[in-house]
């Protein structure tokens, strides 16, 4: 699997997207905190966090006795820069061309 595959796979799950949203709202949470917001076993939440960590979307850091989870937005930025920019640019330029064409013929 490539890095992009891992990111897309990690994002293709509503629980994992929910976890990312929670970390976006406030970073640096423990497993216990994240678990308290989900109707899911601790083991289930751990498994989802591991997929997110493997995709690089979550980075865990030790702080004393606690393991804190941080959202790492860089992989999403990479996908944005490599894929989404590419396609939206084309749409924008197509619209710009359409506008020029319509204005010239008007």
């Amino acid at each position, binding site marked *: 699997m490539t*890095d992009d595959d891992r990111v897309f796979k990690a994002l293709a799950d509503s629980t994992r997207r929910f976890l990312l949203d929670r970390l*976006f*709202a*406030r*970073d*640096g949470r423990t497993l216990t905190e994240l678990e308290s917001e989900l109707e899911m076993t601790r083991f289930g939440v751990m498994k989802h966090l591991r997929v997110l960590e493997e995709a*690089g979307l979550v*980075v865990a*850091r030790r702080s004393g006795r606690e393991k804190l989870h*941080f959202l*790492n*937005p*860089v992989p*999403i*930025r*990479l996908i*944005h*820069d490599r894929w989404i*920019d590419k396609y939206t640019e084309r749409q924008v330029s197509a619209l710009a061309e359409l506008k020029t064409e319509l204005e010239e013929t008007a």
Partner: protein
Amino acid sequence: MTTKTESETTVQVYRVYIKATPQAIWDAITKPEWTRKYGYQAAAEYDLRPGGMFRSVASEEFQAMGMPEVVVDGEVIEANPPRKLVQTWRFLWDEQVAGEGPTRVTFDITEDDGGYSRLTVTHQLENAPATAAWLAGSDARLQEGGGGWSWVLSDLKTLLETG
């Protein structure tokens, strides 16, 4: 991106895997001829020893858009090339962010498999919500699509991998 609404985040962590040696990444962070080629294209000047000075000089283009000449300053706390750099970091864009005072940033570079290296940027932002918003790319004044560390690191990866 929207602004964070819950209690303030005080640490931001960014990680990227780059197909380059730790030395190449170290140089790209600490040498002005490299820092001018990606992100905000400011020229970084470092005196790489504890207590050494750091400053980042905005490009003429950014200065023309209203950035001060020295856009970030700080002090080196620890320099262990090409693995670890710890420094203070004060953003001088405007009075509000400059007034929040110096924050602390750590760059960790480790070798990974397959010719990749892992770069982790950990930015401690206690009592610096405006600086934090900038770095997270959620300040409204940034161009659409955000900016901040994610954007800078994505650009750094592209530069080192594709030139």
